[in-house]
């Protein structure tokens, strides 16, 4: 993200969105402890759960990408290395978010 003001806004808003989602996930982990494979699978095939899990992954990866960008800018001073590192982080974020969405969709349908 080039514009630093937008960057900050997105970082703050994504943080706001993740908080309730994380609470919900920790709550779900507590409720589901000791559950079998089938129970876990069924939990994921519930559209409500699937939607919020997908939202969690997308927003979390956005937040992660924005946060790591700041850290890389702080510590990697060589401009070429810097943009390469940020680019690879972005690509990794898209790939992993893609895997998460793909998995969730598989269980949903």
């Amino acid at each position: 993200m080039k514009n630093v003001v937008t960057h900050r806004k997105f970082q703050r808003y994504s943080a706001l969105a993740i908080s309730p989602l994380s609470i919900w996930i920790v709550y779900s982990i507590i409720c589901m402890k000791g559950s079998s494979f089938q129970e876990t699978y069924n939990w994921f095939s519930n559209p409500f759960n699937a939607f919020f899990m997908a939202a969690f992954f997308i927003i979390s990866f956005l937040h992660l990408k924005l946060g790591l960008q700041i850290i890389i800018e702080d510590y990697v001073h060589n401009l070429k290395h810097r943009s390469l590192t940020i680019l690879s982080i972005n690509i990794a974020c898209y790939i992993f978010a893609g895997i998460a969405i793909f998995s969730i969709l598989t269980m949903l349908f």
Partner: protein
Amino acid sequence: MDTIENKTNKRPLSPHLQIYKPQITSILSIFHRFTGVFLAFGLLLSVIFVFFTAMGEETYKWWNCIVNSLVGKGLLFLWLLAIIFHALNGVRYFLWDNDIGMSIPSVKWSGLFVCVLTLVLTCVLGILIWM
């Protein structure tokens, strides 16, 4: 003979990290950063978990073995600690963005509060998850 330019170039850098006394301000700030990076790895692992669940019972069980091992539990506990700290400390940044609690007494007080609350919440949730 040393020219002035030569002298300017060989000037040493004064010690920084080596001598600066740890402050609650900088310690919590760097801890926010550490937990953030640590949570990034946690997020990758949770993607793998979801992926393995979607792939079927075989891979799910294999993954579950790792999660239920001592190392897996330890990592999960640290991850819980990290997410709670990162979230609670994040609230301080929101308040500061809105010009609330920026005096040094407030900063120290809220920092301490975040640390204590993190430990308490982590223990309570840890007990709820693993007991």
